[in-house]
């Protein structure tokens, strides 16, 4: 991992079109400003990990439970 030290107001450029600026440091919190291309998505890691875990859970459904759930919830929907 590349490690660099920055002060508030200082920036980093990643390649040609990504700019990361340290805006402020308050205690344990660092405020970061990101300038990224319009088609680049930025996600917090914990959110990304949670979605990944939920995807894994949605996969682990056994076929028997899947059928049972289908039957349980059939007709219980609002439509």
């Amino acid at each position, binding site marked *: 991992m590349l490690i660099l030290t920055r002060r508030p107001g200082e920036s980093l450029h990643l390649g040609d079109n990504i700019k990361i600026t340290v805006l402020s440091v308050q205690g344990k919190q660092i405020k970061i400003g990101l300038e*990224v*291309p*319009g*088609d*680049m*998505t*930025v*996600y*917090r890691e914990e*959110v*990304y990990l*949670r*979605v*990944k875990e*939920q*995807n*894994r*859970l*949605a*996969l*682990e*459904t*056994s*076929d028997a*439970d*899947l*059928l*049972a*759930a*289908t039957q*349980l*919830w*059939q007709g*219980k*929907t*609002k*439509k």
Partner: protein
Amino acid sequence: MARQNEKIVQTRLGKQVVSMDKIIYFPRGLMGFEDKHEFTLLQLKEGSPFLVLQSLDDPRLGLLVADPYSFLEDYPIRVSEAEQKLLRLENIRQVAVLVTVSIPKGEPEKTALNLTGPILINHKARLGLQVPQVDGKFPNQVYLHMPQE
């Protein structure tokens, strides 16, 4: 039946014939499965709110999904400009929303909707994208057995 318009794929529901216009391309894959790009939606049962989002490349990769609005009155989702671009959305109404569903082993009554990573599908362009929600206004999961009144 033009054969070139269909593809036979192995799915977790057995062998299925998938018509080419039912293939949804996920440019980013799904989170944790970034290398899988082609999916289709399989209906489990007529009238069931549940579907399987099935990878065309991996029979084991079939996620249980549902239309959240069949169960929830309110589930506002936020789609960033970058995400709208990836989905080639001209209008937010073009998009269909699905959420993944988890069922703990042997406990179908604990079926839960996962609300953190809705899957958006642009029907017209047949493009799909998982769009994490960071707002925290709604819980990560809701159990379907809870009264929704």
